Each structure stands twice: as structure tokens, then as C-alpha cells.
């Protein structure tokens, strides 16, 4: 039985956390019917991906001589954060617009084209 807190953290640990965040985000996106809930799912997915980028870019988590993504990982995470902010603003504007027109934010009600 190895003591988990005595081992140094490896890349795998970060990837597992990233995977859990990603899956939570996907589940949130598909299960929630509130448009803003869906948006929150997207944020979770992006954060899971970001965590992987940062972990791959970290110089402290690599094994032996494996090359790390270096600063590129940080820069990708940075662009993801900025684009996520833009995406959230846009999606929120759409949600508010939808709310103005239909007085609801339930995405299942957005089916006018079907009818």
C-alpha cells in the first residue's frame, strides 16, 4: 500500500482531473435544459481542456526526459480563456434575446423551425 501523499504528482493526475471536468461539462451540456446551464457545461469542458494544456506545458510534471509543451501550453490556455469569455458574452446575448422573444430560457422550447 503506497501512501498517496508521499508520491510526487505526475501528469496523469492532472489528466484525470481534466477528464472528470470534461465529462461533467459534457453531461451538463446534454442534460440541462436551461440555456445558461448549457453554457455552464461549456465552461466546464473548456476548463477541463485548459487543465490538460497547462499540465502538458508544466515543467514539473513530466517524466524523466519527456519533452514538455512548454510555454505553448500556457499560451493555448490563455487563448482558450479569452475566447471563452467572448463565447460566454455571445451566448448570453443569444440567451437574453431568446428570453426576450419567448419569455423562457428552456432550450427545448426553441423549436420554431421544426413546426
Amino acid at each position, binding site marked *: 500500500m503506497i501512501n498517496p501523499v508521499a508520491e510526487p*504528482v505526475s501528469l496523469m*493526475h*492532472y489528466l484525470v482531473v481534466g477528464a472528470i*471536468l470534461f465529462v461533467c461539462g459534457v453531461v451538463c451540456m446534454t442534460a440541462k435544459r436551461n440555456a445558461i446551464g448549457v453554457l*455552464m457545461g461549456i465552461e466546464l469542458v473548456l476548463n477541463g481542456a485548459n*487543465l490538460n494544456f497547462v499540465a502538458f506545458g508544466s515543467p514539473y510534471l513530466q517524466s524523466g526526459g519527456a519533452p514538455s509543451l512548454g510555454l505553448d501550453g500556457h499560451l493555448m490556455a490563455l487563448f482558450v*480563456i479569452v475566447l471563452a469569455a467572448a463565447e460566454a458574452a455571445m451566448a448570453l446575448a443569444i440567451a437574453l434575446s431568446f428570453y426576450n422573444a419567448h419569455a423562457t430560457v428552456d432550450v427545448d422550447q426553441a423549436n420554431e423551425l421544426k413546426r
Partner: protein
Amino acid sequence: MGIVFHTVLFYLLAILACGFAVAVVLSNNIVRMAFYLVACLGAVAGLFFLAGADFVGALQLMIYVGGTLVLLIFGVMLTARGPLANIQTSRAQWAMVGLIGASLLAVLLYAATTAGKWTHSGQIVADRSHVSKPTATPIGLALLGVRADRLNAERTDAALGKGMAGYLLPFEIVSVHLVVVLIGAAYLARARRRATTPPMAATSGDSNNLDPGD
């Protein structure tokens, strides 16, 4: 058998992040979801700091938690009233979603844990807990197209030029993109004054004279 401080902090933050992420999924109240999301992203920022990405961590706190999520909560407050705050998902949907989520998680966890290169950390990380390399300057230079971090490589010949590819063009594209989004969002969310709109619609553009409903 000592305790690696870095690892303890990692487990603490990882449990917080995962726990609040699961709470976001399981909660039905949209405002609570927003709160759990804030906590989750805050813990992720902590994980960024722990991985040595101090600039990205601070950026996460500033833009994501302080900006995007405040915006999101603002949107929640504008739209969540009465029954809309608790939209339920049917059991059948939950079952389907759970199945998809579980299989996706299995695939991702399998990928993450089986690649040998990723599982074993070769170096001891205990002694670096309070000497972390600053990343703000090289990131700033990289955004201007100069990869100062690559200059330390052994190679100083022409082949280095290939690795020097900076991020000036993406940076400019993102700037233009942000301006477009700013204008577009303002246009989309502007207050439309129509006679047939529901009572809320006419005033939702400005927070000043909103009816909070009941």
C-alpha cells in the same frame, strides 16, 4: 516517509474542483449551479498555480471567475425567475446522459492512466514548492512574436528560427474577434421595444428599472 506538500495541495484542489463540477451537474437550481461553477473554476485556478502557470492562473481568476462568471450570474439573475430557476430533466434523459458520460469518462481515464510516459514523474517536486519560474515575461514576449523561452535551447542555428514562431497573429486575430463579439453582443442583447413582448422584455437592456418578479 515524508509528505510531499505539493501533492497534498494537489489532492485538496483536485477534490474541490471535481466535487464542485459534479455538484454543477447534479444541482437543479441554476443559481446554485453558478455558485458551484465559481468554486470549481477557482480550484482549477489553484491547480494552474500548482503546475507553475502563475500567469494563466491569475488570468483564470481575473477573466473567468471575475468576469465571465459574473456575467453569467448576471444573465441568470435576468432570466431565472420562479419556475425557470428549476427546470427539471426527465429520468429517461438522465439515464441516457449518465450512460454517455460514464462511457466517455471510462475512455478518457483509460487514455490518461495507461500511457506510461505520463504516469511516472521522474523528478522530486518537493523542493521546488517555493521557487517557481516566472512566466509572465516570456508569455508577453511570445504574444509579440519573440519566443524568449526557446532561446535557452542548445541550438543556435537557423533551425531555431522555426521554433521561434510566436503568437503575434493569433493575438491580433483574438483582439479583432473580441471587438466583433463586443459589438455583436451589444447588438443582440439590445432592448427591443415592441408592444407584443412579455412584460420583462421591454426593459431587460438596462438593469436599472427591472422588475424582479416574484
